[in-house]
């Protein structure tokens, strides 16, 4: 879908066209799910925030001032919802996994062992680092765009990113040996 098509679909969605909206959603939903899954660490909550995001985005699409920013706008909504959900985890500590990232790495006899690996790596990150890495890897944003979405500065994002990658490489590096 090119920019003109995206624009057209956004304008149609503004007039209540759910088909157009879902065409736009189709472009990004797999990445949105990966994003939510690795931010929150579990499938059920990821499904829930995605549904909420879709509903909010559809009903609030009039607030999207520039149609070409659809992708960053919907990821921004999703990121906000994920961070809110993470705050809930902190409040209800029983939701937090008790095992440490190191324990998890051993538990790789899972059908999706590879993805668990990445999850352990994500668990080593702070909330901000998680958000930055998720935006860059799953949404494909560069430092500048990530900075805009998080309303931070490019330099901050760049160094948080490097710090995060340094942490993650400790969990993922066996693939490079």
């Amino acid at each position, binding site marked *: *879908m*090119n920019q*003109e*098509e995206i*624009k*057209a679909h956004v*304008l*149609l969605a503004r*007039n*209540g066209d*759910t*088909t157009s909206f*879902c*065409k736009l*959603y189709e472009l990004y*939903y*797999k990445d949105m*799910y*990966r994003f939510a899954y690795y931010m929150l660490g579990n*499938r059920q909550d990821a*499904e829930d925030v995605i*549904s909420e995001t*879709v*509903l909010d985005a*559809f*009903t609030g699409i*009039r607030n999207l*001032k*520039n149609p070409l920013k659809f992708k960053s706008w919907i990821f921004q909504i999703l990121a906000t919802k994920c961070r809110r959900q993470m705050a809930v985890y902190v409040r209800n500590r029983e939701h937090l996994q008790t095992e440490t990232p190191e324990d998890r790495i051993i538990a790789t006899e899972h059908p999706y062992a*590879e*993805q668990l690996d*990445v999850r352990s*790596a994500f668990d080593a990150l*702070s909330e*901000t680092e998680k958000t930055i890495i998720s935006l860059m*890897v*799953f949404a*494909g944003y560069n430092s*500048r765009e990530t*900075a*805009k979405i998080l*309303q*931070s*500065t*490019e*330099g*901050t994002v*760049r*160094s*948080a990113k*490097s*710090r995060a*990658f*340094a*942490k*993650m*490489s400790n969990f*993922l*590096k066996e693939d*490079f040996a």
Partner: protein
Amino acid sequence: MNEQDLIHTIDEKTKNLPVPDSITPESMKKMLDAHTTSAEHIIPEDKDQPSPTRNRSIRRFTAAACVVLCLVGGVGISQLLSGSSHGDMTADSASSDMADTPGSNLIQADESTADETDVSVSESADTGATMSDLAYQTSLKSPSSYEEYYQTLKSAYDAYYDQLSQVFTDKQTDIEEDVEEYVDGVRAFEEPMNTNTTVADPYAASADTGGNLTDFSTTNTQEETVDEGDIIKTDGTNIYKVISAFDNRTRHTSYKLTMTRTDNGKLSLMTSIDLDDVLQTSEDDSVDFQEFYLYEDRLIFLYDKTSINGDDDSTTTYVVVYDVKDKKNPKLIKTLSQSGWYQSTRISDGYLYTISNFTDTSLYDEKQYRNYIPYIGGKPIACEDIYYPTDISAETTHVITSLNLKHPTGFTDSKAIPSSGYQYYVSDSAIYLYATAYNEITRTEIMKVGYQDGLLTAGSSAVITGYLYDTFALNEYDGYLRIVATIPANNIIRLGSLTTDTATDSVVREDVNTLYILDENMKLTGKITGIAPGETIYSARFFGDTGYFVTYKNMDPLFSVDLSDPANPAIIGSLKITGFSEYLHFYDTNLLLGIGMETDPETQEFLGLKLSMFDISDPSNVTEQDKYIIEHSEYSDALNNHKAIMIDPKKNIFGFLYFGTVGKDYNYYSNKYYYVTYTYDKEKGFVQTASYPVTDGSEYEYDAVRGVYIGDYFYLATNRTITSYRIGSEEAIATVNLQ
């Protein structure tokens, strides 16, 4: 492991994550349809209050969109959005269709250089260049009117969309052409340019030293004579520091510039400027302070501001000049603006060069100049200052301005150049914009804009194969641009499988590195290919006729290259040691400092941050004179932000912030931040002179930590405080609160 590998690994490992049925587009449509039906009678009254203006604009947009829809219906989303096929188009097949667009035949720049153009064209023919290669010779022209520029942009956009579908269907052929054309690794578009061969006056790095004989640190820059902006500056008496405060509720970041007077370790906060007042932000604006400079008695702030206006939003970069002669009463003397996002700045020879990126091009209305012509200080940039290549395509436009800091009344010069580049290297005579397209073959396009006394000369560009690890991969010396690039493995895999039609993966599945030398017209004069197969470049530094660079996989070979004959560069030495360096700094004429990581050569395990001192007195026989590993260290910003390093070899001091644990009880969660300072002694090697735990602030704020020294005192500045110490002592003398 570099970041690209990591991103790739994470992407690979997670892309098959099964998506639950409940969130597929079909399920979501059902949910939304159910929602809209139930909410039907609420929506029209509550939210749907279309103003006449909005209605009109919707109709207009939709109509335009439909036309294009019909043209490009079949193009894949990933191609359009990622811009990858766009790269293909500019690189190889822009030729025939683009040649038909009006204006593309007006190639010759100016008559005086026509001869040179002829020569270079025939040279290309000799080397077996194809017709499309010749058509791709890029030269720049200026439009005679905005209307002409509009037409050029319009046909370029049309051609761009048209091309995309072709690229999509003829992919196979395109790749083969690539192989042929790029077999040489580099291709220059011979655009003759007025060569600036002036030697710049040595420019006192960043401050007025008049009457003040103490030594002090300056921002660690890539080029000695070209200053770079940062969040801290000192003039040898005062420390200027920008601090930020983030409001979690409004998500608004506010910035303040603080001025602190120092007197042999004593500190007093003189004044602070609230940048929110200066930036005059309203609720709908989003503002990013970027960096600032100190030049004689002037402070120069750089920021960009995005304003939302109906359906459009536009971003403008601002340059604000303050006079701080009277430290108690700083005076605003000038505010200048140019269209686009802030990208980068430098100060060279008394001029500030500001690069912004104008991305808001929209061609719905020819009369609305603001939608496709960059504005400089409220006026559209003059036609003769717009340069576009004959293969202009749907790229963004870079706006470059110069400002005389002695008389900052208005921009001295300004140029608008469509270019995809978004990274910058600035030498003492030219600005290089570069961008990498990661396609079947990874290529980097580099465009050169010469400067002298504030006057800008749009020049040539070249495309090289490979990516650059950062701006230190580029260096200009004596008119020659030297570049080290890495060609990633997957490129070669595809090349291999295309030519042999079999899986020859085991042979070619390796990263490989190349050194290129381009002359002042960006034509290839020499290269070294096939360097360190299987490894990638981690750092580089050039000094006159010699270059050093580090590649890494299991070990860290430090290569030395003889560049004295630009046609025949040669590797003259390589030193294999464990770990790798990510930053290199000439400590004196015989010593090269490397800051990096130590790794276990067997397991690749990170063992901590590492300092290396290389003896380079004989470049063909480099030795590691000393090595220092910071125990239990995890990470330092010094590895990828040179401005985070305080370094002055003359004073024999350097320092940076790192994340790790001091003491025996080490585990991952015991890590904290420490600012450490070092000296280097020929006999004793590296000596850590002090280590300061840094604890204040949130995680974000550690990026704002900087060290400076003035005379015998060291000042540690965070986002909240400045604390003074005698150099080498860990005992605090005074602290001032900046918030």
